[in-house]
């Protein structure tokens, strides 16, 4: 599976990528929407993990732009909201099907990735 991780906190996104690699999952990472779009233009990804709030281009806008080129790509959103309840409000209409609240357990992230990609097959 080809994974793209996008979060403006470089130390977070690079560490998640490293930890996924120890679990047999190769993930590319970017720290902005612009960087992520460049990666998407050059490689096909199955799934992207996007931070909701990023400078200039947030995760929701980035999803829309990626979807234009890759309509089949799946998304998990990361949020710094206090709780899942806080985050749920108003996000289903915006196209947020899957999300995790920071800090994220790597096992929970992997589980969610596998569940989403299994559903698609």
């Amino acid at each position, binding site marked *: 599976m080809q994974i793209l991780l996008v979060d403006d*906190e470089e130390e*977070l996104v690079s*560490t998640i990528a490293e930890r996924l690699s*120890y679990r047999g999952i190769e993930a590319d990472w970017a720290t902005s929407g612009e960087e992520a779009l460049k990666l998407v233009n050059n490689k096909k990804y199955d799934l992207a993990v996007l931070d909701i*709030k990023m400078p200039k281009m947030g995760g929701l806008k980035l999803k829309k732009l990626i979807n234009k080129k890759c309509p089949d790509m799946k998304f998990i959103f990361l949020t710094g909201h206090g709780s899942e309840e806080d985050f749920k409000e108003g996000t289903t209409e915006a196209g947020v099907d899957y999300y995790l609240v920071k*800090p994220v357990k790597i096992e929970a992230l992997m589980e969610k990735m596998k569940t989403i990609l299994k559903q698609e097959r």
Partner: protein
Amino acid sequence: MPFKLVGEIGLKFFGKISASISHEIKNIMAIINENAGLIEDLTLMSEKGIPIDPERLKNISAKIIKQVARADTILKNMNKFAHSIDEPFGQIELGELISLVCGLSARFASMKGVNVEVNNIKTPIIIITNPFFMQTIIFRCINFTMDNCEKGKTVFITSKDNGNSATIAFGKLREFFESKENLNFPQKEEKILLNALKSEMILSLDTKELILNIPKDINK
């Protein structure tokens, strides 16, 4: 003074800052969490015979220390901010207050891709005012200027002592503000705050700045 409205505006500001700080702390916790997880991964790997490079551990430790320092700065600012509500009037140093509001605004600035530069004069400007509402109006001025600043996306803030009053200038605003009618600022909420703080806001078309005029002593 319309106390209820001023209270509502203040509460809204308090909520906005608290939410922003909690988001930032969540990010810091997430980084610390991943680095702790990484140490765990490396330890498990070493148990299977893959040696851990000490430099690697030093590097992870440095990252955690950096995030703890980041959280400490944010929480110190939050503590000062929270205590600004303790007294309705207090003696404050204007430069310190501006720096505090800039610290509290840092995440908003980052989200908007804007830099904020503060050029406080070296001589302290002591004022007596309502510290919380003064922070609220300064935050609103910074926010407005961030949304309407010139290309290059830097907001410059300067303070000045005028004897019985002090000024804070926020600039530089974009060219399209050719008249005060185009500005649409201050709006109702800012006007209520200005009234409560016995202050006024002026648009300087020459310097393309928003200028906040505040009394040195609100009780005089």
